[in-house]
């Protein structure tokens, strides 16, 4: 099956051995979208690399940027101002809602329900509009910088965002009314793709797949990063471990994200948003005259960079798909020595062959959809 799939699954080739309608064995073949992201990172400064990172998980782009920017910040001990931290939280949670929405559409489209696919794009377009006004791009934002964010929120953005939250929460309840108690949906999804708690931990799952199997593990609570501790929210989890549980966890996470956004918007302090790079360029403006005769043929002007010390560490964020991590080894220069990306989809996809053994052919799409992978980050 594959590598081309309809409805936004990315390029994944599944070699399935069926016996009639039952699946005996399955082997996923990856690598169709391998672009050598890790190798490229070794020759780019962090600011140069930021446009690349949004292409890992292109549905929840703020998380990729957050982890790429967190890695050198923690390595070089750069503190970020509180306003920037709250802006980051708001953007991250909006991105989480967007990602779960776009998971929901294709998941149900594969099961057979085509209508939610259009519904989710209605909300997602609004999130795109919010992002475009704040960052300049609908999807590949390039918004986070070392030290904070690139630009402050425009005037009126906070009100628009609150309006969106008030609009979106009833819509999520509408999805629940449409989908959750639908008997056809329940028959397709209940009891399909069961992962026990021990299996989930052993296979290295993370994110909603792990929380649906009964493990209350959310990196936002464990790692205490950004300002999540100042906001009152709960980890959403289920115990059943089947596809229905994973669906319920994601719906609950969407509601919790709206809750977090509303609280963060109310708590948003004033203060700097700290684009260190922009401040540096403004300081240099008097000295370097890029338009003068000496530089008139210089096309590529280098921007201020951060020197990474010769240390290593592993930072992670709770992306909507799971634990997105970066293992960064600095090299006392502006380029990292090793930039290993730990994508959640890569680890979550490992369990697929085991889950599919003994299932029917039609359950392949249910299980694959409920694990929620995105090939951009699986293959990098």
């Amino acid at each position: 099956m594959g590598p081309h799939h309809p409805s936004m699954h990315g390029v994944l080739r599944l070699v399935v051995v069926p016996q009639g309608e039952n699946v005996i064995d399955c082997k996923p073949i990856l690598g169709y979208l391998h672009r050598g992201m890790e190798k490229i990172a070794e020759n780019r400064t962090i600011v140069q690399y930021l446009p690349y990172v949004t292409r890992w998980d292109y549905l929840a782009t703020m998380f990729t940027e957050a982890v790429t920017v967190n890695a050198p910040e923690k390595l070089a001990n750069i503190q970020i101002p509180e306003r920037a931290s709250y802006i980051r939280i708001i953007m991250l949670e909006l991105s989480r809602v967007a990602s779960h929405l776009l998971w929901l559409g294709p998941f149900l489209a594969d099961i057979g329900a085509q209508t939610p696919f259009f519904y989710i794009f209605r909300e997602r377009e609004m999130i795109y509009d919010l992002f475009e006004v704040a960052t300049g791009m609908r999807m590949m934002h390039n918004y986070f910088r070392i030290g904070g964010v690139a630009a402050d929120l425009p005037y009126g953005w906070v009100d628009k965002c609150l309006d969106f939250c008030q609009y979106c929460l009833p819509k999520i309840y509408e999805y629940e009314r449409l989908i959750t108690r639908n008997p056809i949906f329940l028959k397709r999804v209940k009891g399909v793709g069961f992962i026990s708690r021990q299996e989930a931990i052993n296979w290295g799952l993370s994110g909603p797949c792990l929380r649906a199997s009964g493990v209350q593990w959310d990196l936002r609570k464990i790692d205490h990063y950004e300002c999540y501790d100042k906001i009152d929210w709960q980890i959403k989890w289920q115990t059943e471990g089947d596809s229905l549980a994973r669906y319920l966890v994601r719906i609950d996470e969407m509601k919790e994200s709206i809750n977090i956004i509303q609280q963060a918007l109310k708590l948003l302090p004033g203060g700097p948003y700290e684009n260190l790079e922009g401040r540096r360029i403004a300081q240099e403006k008097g000295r370097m005259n890029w338009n003068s005769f000496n530089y008139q043929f210089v096309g590529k002007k280098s921007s201020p960079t951060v020197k990474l010390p010769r240390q290593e560490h592993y930072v992670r964020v709770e992306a909507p798909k799971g634990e997105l991590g970066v293992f960064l080894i600095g090299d006392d220069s502006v380029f990292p020595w090793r930039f290993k990306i730990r994508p959640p989809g890569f680890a979550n996809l490992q369990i697929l062959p085991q889950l599919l053994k003994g299932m029917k052919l039609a359950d392949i799409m249910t299980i694959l959809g409920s694990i929620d992978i995105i090939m951009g980050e699986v293959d990098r």
Partner: protein
Amino acid sequence: MKFLAAATEGRISAWLTKHKFSHRPLGYDYRGVEILQVKSDEWLSIAVALYAYGFNYLRLQCAYDAAPGGSLISVYHLTQMRDQPDQPEEICAKVFVSRTNPQIPSVYWVWKSADFQERESYDMLGITYWGHPYLRRIPTPCWSRREDHVGNARFSCSFTYMVKLLDF
């Protein structure tokens, strides 16, 4: 975090020494996670010991080379996963192997999450993992990530080779 590092000064290292597992502590990484250096032939027994200690979650398995022409290093980040923990214990184990004969026992049978990640390390740097049930290339058809490969060694593979290499 610094206070925590001082309090658990080599705690896991001390536990391993008490049970007579040979390893070498390498200090801490920048977040305060303890790093151990393990020899390739002893790695499997230490992995099982760490699993028995409570590290039930293999978070990250990656590989890199220390320098162009230097040794290859396979890195394992392990965590204790429980319900709602506060600052769970973490450890980082590194296995150093030579470039000419990189062989490491696979920890797939201890932590299944090493499956794809060891396959990727095999593909990218050529480290062979003994005991892995299905060690085939994942992302690429050619060795591409080693530091001593000049420039675009990726493109030195011909198209027919890549097509043939959809081996499974």
